[in-house]
């Protein structure tokens, strides 16, 4: 099916970064044990005013936006039929695989009564009008789809060519689902804020949030590709993919321009832009977020810069930061519970769990690229 050969990178598995990441993961697991014994209140700073903290916003909302790499690249390669990006599909799908699987697991940490989780999948309890239900089922479905989409890598590694052939014949259905499902739930993550109503500052609360969440998820997914490409090139001593990434950055620029046009146009149209100059935390965070979006895209606007690996990397990081801030701002900074004065700032254990989850993600990345044919084979 693919004209591009992939190969395991090889090399020693247990390295210094591996050990550091494993240590961070172990801390997170120990803290999670405490969470399951003593409850959410013992580990997190969550309260009735802020029932969603960083375990939802970072681990799930941002984690799945990172996980949109596979979605965004599949969209370009399979829907827009741009085959030149095919060599990066597999590593992008793997980024999605980790992002989504860990987000799915992280949901369990944040659910107060996690043992009731299975009810979600019982059709007779389904509430199809619920945004949360749609997100949960879509994410669960997409995790399954991703593992099937990624399965050829395992089948190739273990020489199961027969099964690989059979899977290839039906893989297009899975790929189609893999493009459909994130479109649905990434926009629903925005809808989840829409239903919070006036609790969310006018700087973020808009009926366009579903579109903004979807387009910024695609933007983050795409930005993750050059980011990951550069890191793996430097970390695993591989060649830079500057040329391919340069062309991908044109797509990033286009998606980013659409996002920014809708974002700023909507603020202007609603007359909400005045809030940006209020000088408070929300206003300053909005300015920072917007500056990152505009800065990242401006960096890519010059053709010269798109050819430079360093500019690509800085732009990718800037845009990822912008997407992260947009999510944190719209869910946490711009959010104010109505009754009384509530406070939320993540506790130290809460942050360490999130760090641990991302450590596991990078750890798995290292194991997978070294042992499985994920990255494109270089000439």
């Amino acid at each position, binding site marked *: 099916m693919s004209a591009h050969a992939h190969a395991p990178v090889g090399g020693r598995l247990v390295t210094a970064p591996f050990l550091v990441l494993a240590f961070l993961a172990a801390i997170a697991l120990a803290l999670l044990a405490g969470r399951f014994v003593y409850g959410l209140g013992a580990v997190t700073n969550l309260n009735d005013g802020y029932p969603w903290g960083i375990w939802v916003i970072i681990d799930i909302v941002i984690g799945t936006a990172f996980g949109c790499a596979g979605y965004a690249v599949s969209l370009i390669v399979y829907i827009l039929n741009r085959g030149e990006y095919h*060599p990066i599909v597999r590593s992008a799908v793997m980024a999605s695989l980790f992002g989504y699987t860990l987000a799915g697991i992280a949901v369990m940490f944040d659910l107060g009564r996690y043992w009731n989780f299975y009810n979600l999948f019982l059709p007779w309890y389904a509430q199809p009008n619920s945004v949360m239900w749609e997100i949960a089922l879509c994410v669960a479905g997409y995790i399954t789809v991703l593992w099937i989409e990624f399965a050829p890598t395992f089948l190739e590694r273990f020489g199961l060519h027969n099964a690989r052939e059979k899977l290839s014949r039906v893989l297009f259905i899975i790929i189609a689902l893999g493009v459909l499902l994130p479109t649905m739930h990434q926009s629903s993550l925005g809808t989840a804020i829409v239903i919070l109503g006036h609790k969310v500052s006018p700087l973020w609360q808009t009926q366009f949030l579903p579109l903004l969440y979807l387009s910024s998820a695609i933007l983050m997914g795409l930005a993750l590709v050059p980011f990951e490409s550069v890191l793996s090139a430097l970390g695993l001593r591989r060649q830079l993919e500057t040329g391919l990434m340069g062309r991908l950055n044109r797509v990033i620029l286009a998606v980013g321009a659409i996002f920014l046009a809708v974002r700023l146009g909507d603020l202007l149209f609603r007359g909400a832009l005045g809030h940006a100059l209020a000088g408070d935390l929300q206003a300053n965070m909005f300015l920072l977020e917007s500056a990152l979006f505009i800065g990242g895209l401006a960096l890519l606007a010059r053709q010269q810069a798109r050819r430079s690996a360093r500019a690509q990397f800085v732009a990718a990081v800037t845009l990822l930061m912008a997407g992260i801030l947009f999510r944190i701002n719209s869910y946490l900074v711009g959010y104010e519970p109505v009754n009384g004065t509530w406070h*939320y700032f993540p506790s130290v254990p809460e942050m360490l769990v999130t760090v641990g989850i991302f450590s596991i993600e990078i750890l798995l990345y290292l194991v997978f690229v070294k042992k499985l044919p994920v990255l494109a084979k270089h000439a």
Partner: protein
Amino acid sequence: MDGELNSGIGGVSRREFIQFCTGVAATLGLSPALGVRIAEAATAPGRPPVVWLSAQECTGCTESLLRSTHPTLEHLILEAISLDYNETLQAAAGHQAEAARHASMKANHGSYVLVVDGSIPTKDGGIYCKVANRTMQEHVVEAAAGAAAIIAIGSCASWGGIPSSGPNPTGAVGVQKILTDKTVLNIPGCPPNPYNFLATVLHFITFGKLPELDHKNRPKFAYSRLIHENCERRPHFDAGRFALEFGDEGHRQGWCLYKIGCKGPETYANCPTILFGDVGPGAWPVGTGHPCFGCTEEGVGFTKPIHALAELKTVSPPTAFARIAEDKGQGITPGAAALAAGLGGAAIGAGAVFASRLGKAEQAESGEHADSGNPE
């Protein structure tokens, strides 16, 4: 049946009467369609005779029947049944009343309904309650001999009630203890809900038999569920919100009364669902803020102290509940701030290091081919 019905129901409109009968069907847990059959039976010409004996009682059961509005007691006794003997309601007195009772029992032998309220004294030959110079024990045994059905109304008749609570000076027992060889349908309560009695009687009139009974011979439609299960304050129990004394904050908020002795968790009755007095929601003991004292339940009402904790039949409250006072959350702590700043700093630092290394790597590669892509 319209004309027949209208003449049979007196001052009530036809519509109201059918509504009442449908309501009775619902109380009995039957299909509303059977309401019409109940209406027909309640207006049929041959009204079943009823003999009502009052033993050691306070007339509370009769009083509560007087307060029923659908049907009214006068409709019941004048149109639906033929109340041939009842010491509170009969016009006759003395020998005349006794004669009427004996005449009815003789004429309707095997087909009348015997209703008893009040407990039966057994101590000292049962001399503590006598009518017409005979003990209640003798009256009950005699009347039961020709009865088609025997209904014990009220807790006293059902299991002894208040006269039987310690030290029980009269040796009071329920009707079943006297009539050991017969089925006595018990409608306990102090007083019982009049509709449980009316529904039972109308069931008997309509279908010619008594409703389904539980192991204590109580009609299942009324006594199969714990009060605790249908209580409107149950969510407070589950959430751990309890009134701890009368008039405290929890009591004023309408929280669960379990900790001030509510016996709802060990008492079987339908009080929370059919309520009392036809005045709408809240018209039952727990609804007004008083703990249920278990009047329908033998061994609970008049036996356990009102303040004593109920013995839970189903879920026990956990030893630790979620906090009632809401935690408003705390702001940023120095540790959290340091960690957040550290993580942010590490990310920016790592980014800068990578960016600078990237510059060198690029320079090294620029001599060769910078593009490793593979366009098709």
